[in-house]
């Protein structure tokens, strides 16, 4: 692992820690640290102009609607309990006595709804387009149950693929084109923007922009089958320079290091894994599963299920079907030597 790369990993870790408020070192058995803040809590946390106006809209709605709820609840309680005169001259009131209740109540409701509708339409207009043209375009394709990410440039030779972890430069709008390779999924990074379905045969568009550096968790929100629960992603917002550095690294193919262990591991990979996975610079060009060229640059594996540690990686390779039943990744049966060779090879995928 070279210096800048480990510095980069450190950077992610620190940002993650700052973002989450706490960061306990993950024990090997636990997948991810316990948080103080729910990582998808969009109601109290948001970043960027695609989601901030919605968060404020949510606060106004909740405050107002709670006030209405309390008012109506009070009206109802008083209606039930208020004291009636012991003797009523008109024991059964005329049918239309009290019609003013309906006029006043629905009149006020109509005014409030009208105001709320206008406010929400204004907000919709605000978040529907970024203030200036997006600096970056990427295509995210939903697969059962992971995300393929392609960074697109005017010069297509500069395009590159990655999976499950999206890096974006901070304070710049990013256009995300959404596709699906199989069933309908939905792309949702709640602290950055609302969700959009990924529908096979269509290309949907949305945009995201982060105000502050940090890691933003995302999740598939359209039921898509067995492992819908474990289809997470992360968006890493970083400074322009850090982003460019990451981008350059991602675009590289790997350079094969000759060491006996690593060579054996690579052979094993080409043998057993290359049908689905790609590692650019080797003969592995499978397209059904995440591109692993820069596996170690990612913070999580298995679409957000586990943190990316060597131990978790081995667990995942050998027990995928227990950790994520139904996933397309099989549980590989490997001997101890094979495991260590494969690990040695995978550890070079910076």
């Amino acid at each position, binding site marked *: 692992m070279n210096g800048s790369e480990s510095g980069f990993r450190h950077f992610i870790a620190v940002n993650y820690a700052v973002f989450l408020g706490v960061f306990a070192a993950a024990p090997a058995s636990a997948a*991810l640290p316990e948080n103080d803040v729910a990582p998808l809590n969009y109601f109290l946390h948001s970043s960027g102009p695609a989601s901030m106006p919605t968060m404020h809209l949510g606060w106004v709605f909740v405050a107002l609607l709670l006030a209405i709820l309390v008012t109506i609840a009070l009206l*109802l309680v008083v209606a039930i309990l208020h004291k009636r005169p012991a003797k009523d001259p008109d*024991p059964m009131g005329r*049918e*239309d*006595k009290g019609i003013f209740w309906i006029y006043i109540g629905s009149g006020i409701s109509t005014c409030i709804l009208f105001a709320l509708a206008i406010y929400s339409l204004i907000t919709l207009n605000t978040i529907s387009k970024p203030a200036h043209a997006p600096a970056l375009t990427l295509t995210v394709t939903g697969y059962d149950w992971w995300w393929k990410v392609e960074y697109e440039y005017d010069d297509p030779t500069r395009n590159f693929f990655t999976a499950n972890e999206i890096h974006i430069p901070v304070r710049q709008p990013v256009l995300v084109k959404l596709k699906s390779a*199989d069933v309908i999924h939905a792309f949702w990074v709640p602290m950055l923007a609302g969700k959009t379905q990924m529908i096979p045969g269509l290309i949907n568009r949305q945009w995201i922009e982060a105000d502050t550096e940090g890691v933003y968790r995302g999740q598939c929100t359209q039921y898509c089958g*067995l492992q819908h629960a474990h289809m997470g992603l992360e968006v890493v917002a970083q400074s322009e320079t850090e982003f460019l550095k990451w981008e350059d690294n991602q675009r590289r193919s790997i350079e094969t290091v000759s060491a006996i262990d690593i060579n054996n591991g690579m052979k094993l990979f080409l043998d057993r894994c290359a049908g689905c996975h790609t590692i650019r610079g080797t003969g592995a060009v499978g397209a059904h599963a995440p591109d692993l060229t820069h596996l170690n640059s990612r913070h999580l594996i298995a679409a957000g299920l586990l943190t990316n540690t060597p131990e978790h990686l081995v667990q995942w390779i050998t027990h995928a079907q227990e950790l994520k039943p139904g996933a397309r990744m099989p549980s590989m049966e490997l001997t101890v030597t094979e495991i260590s060779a494969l690990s040695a090879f995978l550890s070079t995928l910076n």
Partner: protein
Amino acid sequence: MTDVVQSSPDLKLSRIPEVGTSPIGSTAEIRLSELWESAPGWRGWLSTVDHKEIGLRYLVTAFIFLLMGGVEALIMRLQLARPDQTLLTPEQYNQLFTMHGMTMIFLYSLPVLSGFSNYLWPLMLGSRDMAFPRLNALSYWIFLFAGIFLYASFPLGEAPNAGWFNYVPFAGLEYNTGPNIDVYALGMVLLGISTTVGAINFIVTLFRMRAPGMSIDRVPILVWGTLTASVANIFAVPSVSLAFFLLWLDRQIGTHFFDVVNGGKPLLWQHLFWMFGHPWVYAVVLPAMGIVSDALPTFCRRPLVGYSAVALSTMATMLLGFGVWIHHMFAAGLPTLALSFFGAASMVISIPSAVAVFSWIATIWLGRPVFNTPFLFFAGFVILFVIGGLSGVMTAAVPLDFQLNETYFIVAHLHYVLLGINVFPVIGGIYYWFPKFFGRMMNETLGKWSFWVMFIGFNLGFFPMHLAGLLGMPRRIYTYAPHMGWSTVNMVTSVGSFVFAAGILIFLVNFFISLKRGAPASSNPWDAPTLEWAMPSPPPAYNFAVIPFVASRHPLWEDRLDEGAGRSSLEQGYLLMEGRETIGTTPLDAKPDIILKMPDDSYTPFFLGLFSSLAFTGLLLHWPGFTLLMALACSLSLMVWMWPRKDLVQRVPDNKQDKGAAHG
């Protein structure tokens, strides 16, 4: 009065209906009983067309489905109570939530209301049966068979698993190879037949079967609710039946309606499904709101405030309900302009609901509430209705819905709406009409317990789901990690759901105890104003010994309320006993128009239902010969059913003869 008993069938095509009285025990009354009662034993059981019997069957069957769906929900709540649970496999969880949704929405929520309406409509409207009694029986039998059909693959571990909304391509053959989706698709087409014939029956009944004098502005609000829902179903159900039929063709015949590779469109499914789905949501709440609008005033000791406003708002809700389906698809990537329209329409639809809410509150405020169990359920319903309505306003705001959509916030919202507006009025309605159904009162102490346990359990279970949704918890995930911050809310929800279930259990205990040992009920134990309380509890097979003349909205409160239209005549009215007969009236003013000859009990509805279900089973199992045979059997049943019979030709009263027998 004495010579009305005739042994020979009446074959004249016109006559003047006799007006008289027919007290219990009189010869006329005994003859009516003979004419209308079903044969004892299994023969009567299979052939009856009595709307009361069919209504109760609807209620019981739907309630059994409610319990099944409830148990499915409790199992899911065990799985979700703590993070990373492994009680269920993902596949089991997916089947459970699909069956839960399908059961509650299709097999419980509308059928239970059809049960109330079937039982109550003729009694409330002053008629001896529904317009098409045999069609009514057919509607029930097909509902029952479709329910069994939809559950048939559950024990095989091959239940539908693509969610009740069943989006393609996940529900397509490529991703769902088993029989599960075919079961769902065919079952829904079958159920659609039941819903459609039931809806037609309600509509015709309302416009033709009201007692003389019950003009359109005197019918109870429940009737408005069911009428509106029925009209909506006639337009909405074809959309979903078509969608499921196309899906079945895609899966079995190889068409490409939804097949992306060959130019099919997954969005087409979403449109067809929600063009049905949203009107349906209103169809399953409007009659329940009607239950409250009719029964709440009884316990407030005054008429409903703003009858016309509530009736109009019922229809307005339904009309608008056809223009909001896109709010289920806000995240589907549709153009912003379209979203703006549908978002605004989704907000406007709350206005008619506000009318109803303020009408109920005003009715309570201006009345003198009596705190019986049904009152508690109806008052509790009002607050749940308001919570569900307000959270609905949040989801109508398009930008907010981009976040809320497909999270537990929606789960919370829809349960407040469907349990709050359907289950609470239904249980309250059962407490209210139980004496009419069975001639006994339900236990008040247990009743109050059941309300409070249900009410507390419901809010404990479902309110935290709003928070889970705001914390970002997506729907339909079989488990979640501890670091997502959803552990506490889910534990509370699971506890609440079991408390709620305990409340339902208390209700059931009360139901069975009261059925055996409840205090005998008089004909009008709640001192209620509407016609169904004018007859003994339980009502005789013929309902009304004489067809009453109705002069007001509240025939039984006329001596306390002066509505300025004179007095209804309940003891004296049309006798009509030359065979099964009732009176047909004009659609709006309810002027007597025709003597309707009603059919006798018949096996044909049962067999037509059975054979059509078997035909669908043949389609499912790929037995073309068997399917064809069953289709022939259906035709045969229909021929027997439709065979012209002179004694069923409708009679025109003499004074209307100029109109001819066109109505026959």
